[in-house]
Each structure stands twice: as structure tokens, then as C-alpha cells.
């Protein structure tokens, strides 16, 4: 019998697990995918929003502002790349200026520190590549850019190191009330019993809820598409550059990523197939045109990747955080749309507090390990590099040449508390394959290292989710082909 089962290991599930890991509890995380942080958490704008967007008084407003502060602290503690760049919201016409004032007032009501209204020239003094059309801006110094999957991974790894259990490839397929209270959850790996259930299933939170009882709100998934540009464009702007939300929805942003690239997007397109993460020519054209309004000099020829993510939008304005009325003990963390990445740590803390109020004893563990260190060869000084290689020569073998990722770091990823088992799993943990050649060079090598470490044939190594096979067999052993040892 578990005390708590968390369904879903995106950033919300991970933050909740990390929060609960400090208490003396039996906690289990069930993740449908073969890896964590592999849904909306891996495909978003990667911004820790300051918190001037949500309406004052909403859960979202409070959780965003608190989440921003907590997330930056957690990133520093758990060695997650984060950079507090600040953000600007731009106005292009005098008609948009009152909107900046509205955001300023909201932000002030929400408790966002340091907000400042700027003239067009002041904004351009900070960001010389902004369009000459910009006639005003709202500066929010607390906004930050983060490695979103790295953030979630750090929290779930720390949770696992502190005794939280994690089952991957474990989709919850049925939920029923237990005989003596609590719940019984079914996955293909078997049934588990638990006192409390936390639904953190992201864009599928409605479906998970519906396993127990009918849902009284509607999921309205909305896809956003992006460009990710080479590091040669990474310095185009130094801050996150937003536009005023218009009738077509929230504007397109241009931002540096924490890895030094430039991210541009998203649009907003309702979708019915929640797994359709495709890009469309029209969507990309829209994103590009809008981004050029803010920063006309972006060189889209330096694009290295397009991607898209699905927002867990609902027919409600706020996050849907609350107990099932018919089944106390079942807590929804649903409708966690943007700023969900930012709010996650605060959502996790709120969830833990709600469990406490519902009678779960929250006794702090004396030996809670709240730190983490990751080797990042590329950022080390020459002396540190020499020391790393002396410790383990595999830190001297560069496998991903675009990002300078060594075999040692890839092995760290494969043997981490939440081990990488796929090519993209390695990529999310140590960046191999993220660069300008997109794994063209290191892909085969990462495949081989994974196979060697996991003791399987390279043909069994997947790129990503189940079904994403890379190799379909060995070549014919003809004379001209060197045989594989």
C-alpha cells in the first residue's frame, strides 16, 4: 500500500514527487511513457514567467509568482541550467500601450518584483536588435530561461534518490476505489494500491480523471510550433521578447535558450489528435512573420530544428487543482497550461500541503538529500577538464562534436538515478545530439554506447517512444561490407 501515487511524470508530477520525497512516505510515480519529461514538458518555450499575465486572485497568479522564485532556487540547488535574463513585452502601436499598463498593474497586484514600463528607445537601448516600430515595453527582471526537461529530470532524480519509486512504461489504464478506502490503479505491469492519487497526466488529465468518474470540464488541446536556431543566432536578443497578446492569441516570442540557441514561437492551433506533434508550413510561416515584427534581423537560415508542443488548455481560465468530490483522496493537478512549467514547484508544494490537510502525516526525513551535481565538460575550465580526464579517460572522448559532449557524460546519463535508455533520453540528459548536426554524427555512436551499456543489440535501441525503432537489422554480410564485431 502506497501513501501516494502520482500519475504522470512531466514537470508537475516530478515537482510533486520532489516535494513529497522530503517526507517519510511511500510514494510511487507511474509514467505511461518509456521516459520522464517526454510530453509537454519537453516542448514549450522554456521560460520561467515573471507572473504579470494571470488575473490577480487566480490560483495561477499566486502559483506563477511563487513558482518563479522556487524554480530558480531549485535549479541552482540541483544543478539545472537556468538564466535570469528578464523579459520585455513589446508594444508596436500607441493603441497597445494601455495593454502594457494593464500587465504592469496585474503584475504589481500579483507581487511581481521590479516591473518597469519603458519607452521604445529605452527598450532598444537594452535590446539593439528590436524593431524600430517598438514604441513601448514592459520590463520584468525576474523572468528566466531554463532547461525544461533538465528541470523536471533533476526533481524526479532527486526524488528517486530519496526513495520515491518510479515506474516508466506504466500507463494507468483503470482506477477504482479500494475496499478499505484508498484506490487501486491498474497498469500493464500490474495493480497498485494507494491511499491518495495525484493526477498529473498533463494533456491527458481528463482521460485519467474519467477512469474514475465523469469529468465536468473540457480539455481543448492547442498546439504551438517553434523554430530553434543555431548558436550563431543565440545572441540576437539577451532577454525574452514577448508581444502583446492580440485577437489571434498570445504573441510569438523570441528568446535565448539556456543552452545558447535562439527559440522562436509559438503559434496556437487547436488539435484533436493529442499525439500529433507535427509542424505545418502555415504554422511555421506565421511564427516566422510574427517574430520578424519584434526582431527583424533573425536569420532563419540558421534553423536547426522545428518542434511543437501541446498545451493542456481547458474550457476554464485557471489551473484545475482540487479534490474529487465523490472520491476524496483523488487530487487533480489538471489543466496545467502555461505558465505550468514555472508554477510546477509551487503546485507540488500546494499538493503536498493539501495532502497534509487531508490527514496524511508529513514528517520530514532527517536525511533528505537536496543537492545534485552534473558533469558538463564543455563548461569546465582547462584545469577542471584535465582533472576530469585524469579521473576517467572517457571524459576525454568527445562523442557529440557540435555540443562537445563526452562519452563520460553519456555514461553518466545512462547510469543516472533515472537512467536514459533511448537515444533521445541521452539527449535530454546530457545534450548529445542537440546541436547543429542534430545527431547526424553522434547518433550512431550513442546508439552503440547504449547497446553496449544495456547489454542489448543496437537494433533494440529506440530513438524515443515505443515504436520509434532506428535500425531494422544487420546488413547482408557481403564482401564489401565490413562485418560488425
Amino acid at each position, binding site marked *: 500500500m502506497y501513501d501516494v501515487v502520482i500519475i504522470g511524470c512531466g514537470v508537475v508530477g516530478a515537482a510533486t514527487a520532489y516535494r513529497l520525497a522530503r517526507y517519510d512516505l511511500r510514494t510511487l510515480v507511474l509514467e505511461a511513457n518509456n521516459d520522464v519529461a517526454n510530453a509537454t514538458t519537453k516542448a514549450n518555450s522554456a521560460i520561467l514567467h515573471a507572473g504579470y499575465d494571470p488575473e490577480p486572485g487566480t490560483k495561477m497568479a499566486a502559483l506563477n509568482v511563487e513558482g518563479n522564485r522556487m524554480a530558480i532556487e531549485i535549479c541552482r540547488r540541483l544543478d539545472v541550467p537556468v538564466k535570469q535574463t528578464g523579459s520585455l513585452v513589446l508594444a508596436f502601436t500607441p493603441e497597445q500601450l494601455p495593454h502594457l499598463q494593464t500587465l504592469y498593474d496585474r503584475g504589481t497586484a500579483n507581487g511581481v518584483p521590479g516591473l518597469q514600463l519603458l519607452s521604445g528607445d529605452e527598450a532598444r537601448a537594452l535590446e539593439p536588435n528590436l524593431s524600430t516600430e517598438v514604441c513601448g515595453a514592459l520590463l520584468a527582471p525576474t523572468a528566466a530561461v531554463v532547461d525544461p526537461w533538465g528541470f523536471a529530470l533533476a526533481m524526479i532524480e532527486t526524488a528517486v534518490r530519496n526513495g520515491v519509486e518510479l515506474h516508466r512504461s506504466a500507463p494507468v489504464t483503470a482506477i477504482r476505489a479500494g475496499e478499505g478506502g484508498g484506490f487501486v490503479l491498474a497498469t500493464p505491469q500490474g495493480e497498485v494500491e494507494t491511499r491518495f492519487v495525484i493526477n498529473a497526466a498533463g494533456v491527458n488529465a481528463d482521460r485519467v480523471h474519467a477512469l474514475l468518474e465523469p469529468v465536468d470540464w473540457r480539455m481543448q488541446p492547442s498546439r504551438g510550433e517553434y523554430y530553434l536556431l543555431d548558436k550563431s543566432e543565440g545572441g540576437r536578443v539577451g532577454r525574452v521578447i514577448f508581444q502583446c497578446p492580440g485577437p489571434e492569441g498570445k504573441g510569438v516570442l523570441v528568446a535565448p535558450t539556456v543552452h545558447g540557441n535562439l527559440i522562436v514561437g509559438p503559434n496556437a492551433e487547436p488539435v484533436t489528435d493529442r499525439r500529433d506533434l507535427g509542424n505545418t508550413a502555415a504554422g511555421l510561416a506565421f511564427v516566422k512573420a510574427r517574430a520578424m515584427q519584434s526582431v527583424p534581423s533573425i536569420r532563419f537560415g540558421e*534553423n536547426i530544428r522545428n518542434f511543437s508542443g501541446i498545451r493542456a488548455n481547458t474550457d476554464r481560465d485557471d489551473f484545475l487543482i482540487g479534490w474529487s468530490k465523490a472520491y476524496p483522496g483523488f487530487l487533480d493537478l489538471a489543466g496545467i497550461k502555461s505558465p505550468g512549467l514555472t508554477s510546477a514547484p509551487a503546485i507540488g508544494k500546494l499538493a503536498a500541503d493539501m495532502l497534509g490537510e487531508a490527514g496524511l502525516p508529513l514528517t520530514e526525513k532527517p536525511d533528505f538529500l537536496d543537492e545534485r551535481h552534473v558533469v558538463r565538460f564543455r563548461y569546465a575550465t582547462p584545469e577542471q577538464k584535465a582533472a576530469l580526464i585524469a579521473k576517467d579517460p572517457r571524459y576525454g572522448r568527445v562523442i557529440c562534436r557540435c555540443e562537445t559532449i563526452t562519452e563520460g557524460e553519456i555514461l553518466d546519463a545512462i547510469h543516472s538515478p533515472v537512467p536514459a535508455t533511448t537515444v533521445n533520453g541521452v539527449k535530454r540528459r546530457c545534450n548529445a545530439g542537440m546541436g547543429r*548536426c542534430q545527431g547526424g554524427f553522434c547518433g550512431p555512436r550513442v546508439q552503440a554506447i547504449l547497446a553496449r551499456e544495456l547489454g542489448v543489440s543496437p537494433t533494440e535501441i529506440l*530513438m524515443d517512444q515505443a515504436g*520509434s525503432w532506428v535500425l531494422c537489422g544487420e546488413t547482408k554480410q*557481403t564482401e564489401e561490407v565490413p562485418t*560488425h564485431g
Partner: protein
Amino acid sequence: MAETYQLIVIGGGPAGLAAACKAWEQGLRRVLVLERDCELGGILNQCIHNGFGLHRFGEELTGPEYAGRYIAMLAETGVEVRLDTMVLQLVPGRDGHPHEVHAVNGKQGYQVLQAQAVVLAMGCRERTRGAISIPGERPSGIFTAGAAQRFLNIEGYMVGRRVVILGSGDIGLIMARRMTLEGAKVLACVELMPYSGGLTRNIVQCLQDYNIPLYLSHTVTDIRGHDRVEQVVVSRVGPDRQPIPGTEMVFDCDTLLLSVGLIPENELSRGAGVEIDPRTRGPVVAENRETSIPGIFACGNVLHVHDLVDFVSAESERAGAAAAQYVQAQDAAPGAPAPAAAIPVQAGEGVSYTVPQHLHPAALAAGAELFFRVRRVTKTANILVEDANGARVAKFARTHLAPGEMENITLPAALLARATPPLTVRIEEVQA
């Protein structure tokens, strides 16, 4: 404590090998080749087909055989080689040494090496899906042709059974044949331009001989499949190269290979402050392949993308010899002044770039060889070289010009002597 060399060659592909051999032959004795792979030979190691060496050795060799000849030549010299060694940085040197190379490997660890001269020979990388923003989903089964080639030829694994190839560059064409011979069904080779980007011989030997259709003026407009590629949608494009709605063809396949161009790998060069030509995406060089930084030379695919390795070798021998000459001149007269201002060579109408981008007046006495690519397929045409006054310096008649095939001309010294710089190379179409 830093180790010092007369010459450090970065990259042990055909370019680096030829440059190092030549520098040794010219008398340098402290020469080091740094190669990040665990063997020498560069991209040739995965090119197990024939077609290398006709110019250089007068016979048809496979890629590994061609590389083998140079590896054997290098073994005859005292050139030092470090394999499995990645160069991370090239910076100005300390203590009177002009250049400092930072490299790592598992054995010698983090190495700081001093050099009088450096040859850049890092080759190129393939353009990816991202570079051309192909719409659609992002399942597995999308490979650059070179990555697939490595899986097949080096690792010994097949990457798919039903294949569409985007781009008709040479690597794509070679892979169409290779995949077919391995039992895969290659459904189509799709090319955006109205002509192929590869060598004519490869179109014949790799597509036509296997009845693989080539769709010119077409492109991939959608990729379907959540996990692995399931379908690829191909559309015809108009003269503006935009897809024409209603022309979609759907191919059921599990693999999409991309052969959509190569990009010289110049992150190290950029970091060192070497001037890059936006058209070649390689360093700006003079006839001796010296870059904008004295003592740093570049050759092979890092300089501009070559079709034939034979030309890579020839160019690299030139760079190796020039590097040797540079070191010897510096030794004879330390701090010798840089050569006089160079004469620019410009790409005119119908020409996308030239290499070299400028010529030293002293070199003109020996005549000048220019390499370039044309912008369009042309039947009968003249290559014109003109000077600043529009006066014709030289004219070369051609009956076939194509962007996929690098052109070269040699300007005799006698003609150059009279020209007023800069020189412009352009194409004049001749109506039949």
C-alpha cells in the same frame, strides 16, 4: 607546459593527410595531425563504392583504398598523429608562438599545443531536416544520407526497408543504390531544383540502372507517423520553388533519407577569428590557401564543398606546401612582413562563388587556378574573366555547366599581367 610544433593539421581526412605529407616533403620536421575519429581517412572510410582517384592515381579506387594510399604515404614520414583527439579551440599563442591549439583525448588528457602554422582540414557536415524546415511529425526513420551510410557501411546495420530520398546530391544517389543492393525498396528520389545536384555518372549508375524514379522540381511537404515514419508526402514545386497544392503524392515508407547539402565545419575557424565567406561558408583564402590570419591555411571540404576527392588532395598539397614555406620564411626572417595587398576575385553573373577569393600579386607570375560553381545548368556557354575596366582577361568555352559539378580554369600569367584588379568571373550563355 605546452608542446610546440612547426605545423599542426586539424583533421585527418584526405585534406589533412595530403597537407601533412606535402609539408613533410617540403622539409618540415615537427608536424602533428589531430583527428577526432579513431582512424585516419575522414569521410572516405564510409564511401565503400568505386570512383575515387581517377585524376590523382589514374585508377578507380574505393574510398578506403584511396585513403589507404595516403595513410601509407604518411606512415613513410615522421609526421606525428594523434587519433581520438578532438580539437576544441584555436587561439593566438603565447610566448612568441603564433598559434595555440587546445585538444582533448582520453590518453593525453587536455592538451595545449603551440604551432607556427596551422592547416584547417575539418571537412564538412550534412544539412539536416531543420536547416530546410520540412513540415510534419518528428518520428524516427529520418536520417541524413551520410549518417545512414555510416550505419550501413561502418556499423553493419540497415536503417529501413521502404525509402524516399530527398535531394539528389551525390551522397543521396550513392545511398539509393546502396540501400537497393541491401534489399530495401527505394521508392523515389526527390529534388527541389529542376536539375540534379549530383554528378551525371551517379544519376545513371545509381538511379537509372535500378529504375528509381527521380522527381525533379518536387519536394517533401509532409512527414507522417507518431513513432516511426509511416508516410512521406511529395509535392511538385513551381518556378518559385513553392509547393503547388493538389500535386501531392503519398509514399508509404518507413525511411526518409536527406541529401540536401553539406556545410563546411568552421566553428573552430570562426572562434579563431578567421574571415568566412558567406557563400562558401568556408574561410576566405588566397591562391596558397592562406586564410585572413597569417599562418592559418585551409583546404578540402572545410574550405568549400568538393565533388571529387582528387581535387581535395591537390588543393591540400598546395596548402601543405604553403604552410611549409610560411614556417621556413618565418624561421629565416622572424616577423617578416605580410605579403602585399591581394587582388580580389569576384563571382559575377551566373557564378555562386570562387576559391581562392583573392590572389597575391607575387603568385600571378605563375598563373592562377580558380575553382567555382555556376548557378544554373547551361548547355553552351563561355566562362569570362574580366578586370576592373570590364576588359576581358580570358575566355573559356564550355558545352555543359551544372551547379553540381565544380568548375576550374587556369589563368595564364601573361594574361594576368595586364589586368586591373579586381577580377570578376561570370558566365555568358551562348544561344545555339
